[in-house]
């Protein structure tokens, strides 16, 4: 019997990435050593990961349609499809549409000129979402919308690597029972290559140490974390192999796709590990 999660990402067998982004009021709290609001750190991480993923699709003079994407925000305005109206199944966007929707922001970054001197240079960053924080946490509705999109995508791509759903949140769902039902349903949506994968990143303003990809909920500091851990999928071996190339320590067989109190850099890596089943031929 062939192993699961072994399909390569190609233009004929694309992948599906759905990002759920908590935009509730508590996301305005500070986060991380630089004390930025959690919403800002999360938005930056999502934009950074999407830019890297989209850039992977640039090949010679064309865009390779390796993925379909969705970003679902949930907060005081309910659930919002932040990349609405794509031509993919259930409004998922193609790589071309993702590029068409990007905005560009010029920032100044410091780089080493190779001789130990810091130089400031301008860099153009891609942006798709802006930080937002207000209202409650309708995570259940976001998970239900993700279910609908994932199911529509799987119906059209039954032999592809299954959808990966990445949830970035700072706390409890407004309706945990409903959210758990939706999360369970989401993880049961499957292709011939395996079940959909739901990974969760729990941002916290507490000074607790980061915990990454644990194999059990022992050591998680609060019930919210334990709850998010419980709805997180186990990392398949193929993604564990990817994680090891990213120098992510502590990942082992049985690790769940869950990080607690990740720093901004680790948040980006979390998004990358979840979004990088490399295109075929990648090394």
């Amino acid at each position, binding site marked *: 019997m062939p192993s699961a999660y*072994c399909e*390569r990402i*190609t233009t004929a*067998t694309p992948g599906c990435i759905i990002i759920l982004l908590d935009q509730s009021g508590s996301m305005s709290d500070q986060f991380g050593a630089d004390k930025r609001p959690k919403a800002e750190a999360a938005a930056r991480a999502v934009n950074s990961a999407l830019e890297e993923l989209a*850039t992977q699709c*640039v090949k010679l003079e064309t865009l390779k349609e390796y993925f379909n994407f969705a970003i679902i925000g949930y907060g005081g305005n309910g659930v919002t499809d932040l990349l609405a109206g794509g031509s993919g199944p259930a409004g998922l966007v193609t790589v071309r549409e993702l590029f068409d929707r990007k905005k560009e922001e010029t920032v100044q970054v410091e780089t080493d000129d190779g001789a130990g001197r810091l130089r400031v240079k301008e860099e153009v960053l891609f942006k798709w979402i802006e930080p937002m924080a207000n209202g409650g946490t309708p995570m259940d509705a976001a998970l239900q919308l993700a279910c609908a999109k994932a199911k529509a995508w799987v119906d059209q791509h039954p032999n592809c690597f299954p959808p990966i759903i990445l949830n970035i949140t700072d706390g409890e769902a407004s309706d945990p029972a409903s959210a758990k039902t939706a999360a369970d349903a989401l993880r049961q949506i499957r292709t011939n290559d395996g079940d959909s994968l739901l990974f969760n990143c729990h941002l916290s303003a507490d000074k607790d140490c980061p915990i990454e990809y644990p194999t059990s909920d022992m050591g998680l500091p609060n019930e919210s974390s334990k709850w998010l851990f419980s709805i997180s999928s186990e990392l398949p071996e193929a993604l564990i192999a990817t994680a090891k190339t990213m120098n992510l320590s502590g990942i082992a067989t049985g690790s769940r796709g869950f990080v607690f109190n990740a720093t901004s850099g680790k948040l980006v890596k979390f998004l990358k590990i979840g979004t990088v089943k490399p*295109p*075929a*031929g990648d*090394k």
Partner: protein
Amino acid sequence: METSPPLHADPLFVLLIDADALINGPGSPIDLKTFFDSLFTEIRAASQSRVQAGAKLEILTVAYQIAPPSNPPVEGFWTHFTLDLGALHSVNPDPAPWINISKNAFPNLESALSLLGTWLLRRPQKGSPILVLHITAGRFKCSGEVEATAATVKTACDIHGAPGIFYTLWITEAHPQMYLPDVSALQTECNTARSLFRMSSIVGESGSALLNALGESRPLAARCLEVVPSLDASHVTKFLALYFSKAIVEQAGAATLVTRAFLVPKEQEDITTCEDVVSVHLNRRCFVISDGVGTASYSGALARTICRHAVETPPPLFATNETPPEDPNYENQQPANLWLKTVQDYWEPEIPWERLEKLPSIFSKRAKEGAAATMAGIRFLDPADADGLRFRGWVLGDSCVIQIRENCLFASEVLKSAKEFTLAPPVVLVTPGRQPKPTQPWHVWEGALRPGDFLLLATDALSEYILRSFENHTHNDLLIWLNQLEFDSSREAWQIFEEFVHAKRKLHEIENDDVALILIKVRSEASVAPPAASGDHDGDSPLPNPPAPAIALEHEHEP
């Protein structure tokens, strides 16, 4: 170990003609018949000894025409025959192609190149050196797709036994030039010039030797491109005469060596997307494969340039920047940085900056990030000894050299087990404007091939499958397949290769990745074809029919 008398394989001359250039271009109408009559006479004169022995030149002509929008697309044009140089007449009934080619051409260059590339890839591998002469007025639409199909043609030429040559003769009123060292030397500032430059072969070491013999000294990275006002003003006849006379006279390689080379792209992808490349140089007994890293742009181009350079000049013994010690068995004494610099010089002009600048900035940014590729190669050494045919091998990354002896895994370099394959193998890194470097030194070793051994050069997906098959003791399918490939050099060998890879991909036993294989075997006296396989085709065999193109063909006849 005794060796049999050398085989000789008739070289193949492919004439790719832009019908517009002949009829409506500068200096038109162009008299191709006179051009070829003088060319064949020169070839004959330069290769007298072999001509006496019945040397032949296989000729394929492919014509394309840029149909004006008001005209309907025209039908394809394709002739294939063999010329007996001793008598200067065809040995098969097909007529000479240079008459009345104004009708019935492929509707564009890309379709002509696409079919040509497929035909060359699937052609029986008899060790024929191949030269493609493209005569054009340059009025085609320059695009990445056209250049990609030309690249596939060049790769296809290189699997047959010697580095192929794609020689472009651009007939235009622009400033005459030839064998340009780099793109910036083009005095014609237009995208067509740059596109034709990239489509043309690198001169390389073998081309440079030819040019030196003609009194033209050019750097290795120069291109086989002539910009001329008319066919009469061209230099190409002299180049072609020297090339074919050398190809006819030189040995094609020992009869005891069986070599086969194959390429298959990812499932449902076109061959032009394949970033695995192979190159075979039978006269130098050198074989190279390279695998471009998929997430970088222009890695396929890097793999091609690595193969092209390494098959003529294998990488130095040590991947350092020191001059290696004297080694009588090893020609290349240059430090690694100079060897890699040549790879860079071959690769950098492949990037079409003029087109990337018109696209969103991300495309240029990606190109500037550079490219990466693995490589593996072997070169046979003199003399053979009691251990067999000695060879020196080199590997960087997860392309492997695997030796099978008596149906068992005898050796594998550099990876020994399927578990060792990772997503981040060591590679050659090139970046525009910077010194290229390997991420770690390449591994070099020596071995010996005995009669009956298989020596396989394979890129990662196939290497991993081969090693896992032996580890799991499920290698029976593999051995049957390799034996079929060894004994069948006909067009069906390609089909056998593709079907096996396709079947194993469906079972997830081979990753859905580009696959490249060079198979080398020293024939033992006991080697016989398995009953189910077709017979030995290494000797002369009837020329194959071209594949049925998507558009109908019509032969032109001499009046």
